[in-house]
Structure formats: structure tokens, C-alpha cells
């Protein structure tokens, strides 16, 4: 399996699990969970720096080093294209010119469903400005294709709502998206359990991005390791090709020579 690499914007990754850094107990737990997950791409958010802080206050990037991981800044919390583009520009400055971003333009607080009009507008501006855009979107194959055609480097449909842990509710829509895609399709949002992640990979998704499923587990570091195995199992299952389903039984032991 060592040859089976995920390529995003020309860079290759051995791990197909992308992991978030939100909602952990502390930075030590964040670091240990990411380590256990084997992820190489790690998302972060951008927020105003607390002023008047202790100069020794710990910083996330001291625990999740940009030298070791590909840091993927997101635009979480942005509900319009303008805020999302602004956030990406700040992220590029923060990370010394790094141009890979996770674009999400959200529709409302209740569902965090993507606002597609805003997503398309922001994606176009960011691609034109030289960003490598991995884009969170819904499971509409027409939208996915449009985002790919405008130059997004990965399309990331939801499996179910962000933070819901409801799993992959839309396998047939994901299959339609993957059937036509030429860029990686990464399920972003909805995975709650290792078996959810495996299902996404068995369907043929190129990767899975998750956060809450690990951070909100009782034992996040243990769950991070479980997710790593689940993604690997699902990928190998996809590459191996499943047996055909059939309605009637088919014995595994030969019928000849029965006594």
C-alpha cells in the first residue's frame, strides 16, 4: 500500500485522514490525538488574538508544527464570501505565504450547511488570487463539478451536518460526485465513528476530514488511532473491490463429494 498516495495540489500524502484541531481539552491532547491519527494535513481556524495575554501563553502552532504538518487554515465562522476571502488572506500572511486553504462559506448557524452562492463566489476569487482551495460543499454533483472546473484542488462534500456525527447519509450522492471527479473528493463533516469513515473510503472517497468524532470521544487519542485504522481498512477494501451482492445464498464450501 506504500504506493497508494493521496495527491493534493501536487503534494503527496501517505495518510488519507485529515484532522481538525478544535474542541480538544488542551494542546497536549490535540498534539497526541493528531500524532495517533497519522494525519499529515491538519486544519486550524483563525481568530482575533487575545490582547493583554501572558507572553508565555501557549500557542497551537507550537504543538502542531507547520514544519511537520501541512497546516490547512479554514474559514469556519464565515457566512459570506467577503469574510472568507479576507480570512484566507490573513491565513496566508500568518503562515508565510502558504496558499492551501479550506474554504467554507456557511449558510446558517443551525445547520452550518454551505451557502453555495457564497462558496462559488469566494472560490473563484481565491483561485484567481493564487490560492489552492479545498472547498467544503454540499453533496450536489453539479456544484462539485463547477467547483472543480474553476480550479479548486479538492472538493469536500458533507456526509451529514458538521459536528452531527450522523455518519454518511448520502452514499449515492457521493458516488455521483466521485464518478465524474478529477480532483480528490474528501468527505468533510458528519463522520461519527470509525465505521462511518470506513464506509466513506469503501465508497471510493479519496480521504476523510474529521474533528468532532475524535475530539468528542471519551478517549480522543484512542479514537484517533481507531480512525487511522478505519480509513486504511476502507481504502484497502475499495482498492480490493467488493464481492457482488446477491439475493440468494451461495455456499462457500463445494457441493461435490458430499457424503
Amino acid at each position: 500500500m506504500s504506493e497508494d498516495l493521496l495527491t493534493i495540489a501536487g503534494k503527496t500524502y501517505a495518510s488519507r485522514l485529515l484532522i481538525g484541531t478544535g474542541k480538544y481539552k488542551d494542546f497536549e491532547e490535540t498534539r497526541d490525538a493528531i500524532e495517533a491519527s497519522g494525519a499529515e494535513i491538519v486544519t486550524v481556524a483563525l481568530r482575533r488574538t487575545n490582547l493583554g495575554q501572558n507572553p508565555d501563553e501557549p500557542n497551537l502552532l507550537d504543538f502542531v508544527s507547520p514544519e511537520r504538518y501541512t497546516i490547512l487554515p479554514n474559514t469556519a465562522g464565515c457566512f459570506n464570501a467577503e469574510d472568507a476571502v479576507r480570512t484566507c488572506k490573513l491565513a496566508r500572511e500568518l503562515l508565510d505565504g502558504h496558499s492551501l486553504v479550506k474554504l467554507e462559506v456557511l449558510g446558517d448557524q443551525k445547520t452550518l450547511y454551505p451557502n453555495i452562492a457564497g462558496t462559488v463566489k469566494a472560490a473563484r476569487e481565491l483561485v484567481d488570487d493564487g490560492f489552492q482551495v479545498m472547498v467544503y460543499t454540499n453533496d450536489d454533483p453539479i456544484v462539485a463539478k463547477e467547483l472543480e472546473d474553476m480550479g479548486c484542488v479538492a472538493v469536500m462534500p458533507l456526509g451529514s451536518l458538521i459536528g452531527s456525527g450522523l455518519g454518511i447519509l448520502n452514499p449515492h450522492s457521493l458516488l455521483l460526485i466521485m464518478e465524474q471527479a478529477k480532483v480528490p473528493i474528501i468527505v468533510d463533516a458528519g463522520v461519527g465513528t470509525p465505521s462511518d469513515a470506513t464506509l466513506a473510503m469503501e465508497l471510493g472517497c479519496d480521504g476523510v476530514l474529521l474533528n468532532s468524532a475524535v475530539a468528542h470521544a471519551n478517549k480522543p487519542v484512542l479514537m484517533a488511532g481507531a480512525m487511522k485504522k478505519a480509513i486504511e481498512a476502507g481504502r484497502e477494501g475499495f482498492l480490493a473491490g467488493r464481492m457482488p451482492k446477491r439475493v440468494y445464498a451461495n455456499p462457500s464450501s463445494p457441493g461435490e463429494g458430499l457424503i
Partner: protein
Amino acid sequence: MNLTVNGAPHTFNGTTVTDLVAELNLTGRRLAVEVNREIVPKSEHDTHTLREGDTVEVVHAIGGG
């Protein structure tokens, strides 16, 4: 001079972005600075002069998914 920094009024006693970052006890931190909605690159922190009424945003990376 009077600035707005991260949404709050701030009385600034220096000249440049570098001075402001120092005044905020943030020297050496990984952060990005925007003045009046324009990014001020790190290479210009020493030379970018702040003016009365400027709106400054200082951001950093936090946990997120």
C-alpha cells in the same frame, strides 16, 4: 494616538506595527496583522506607520475543524 485593535479602543504610544505588537506583548508570536482591512506583511511591520483612527486586527491560529 487612538486606535481600534481587535474591536476595542486602544491608546497607542509608538509608531509602527512592530511597536504595537511589542506594546501588546506579542513580539515573536505567529500572527497576522491587518490595518484598515489591508494585510500588512511581516516584512513591513518595521516600516508601516500607524495613524490616528486606524483599525487594526491581530489574528492567530486556534483549534478548528
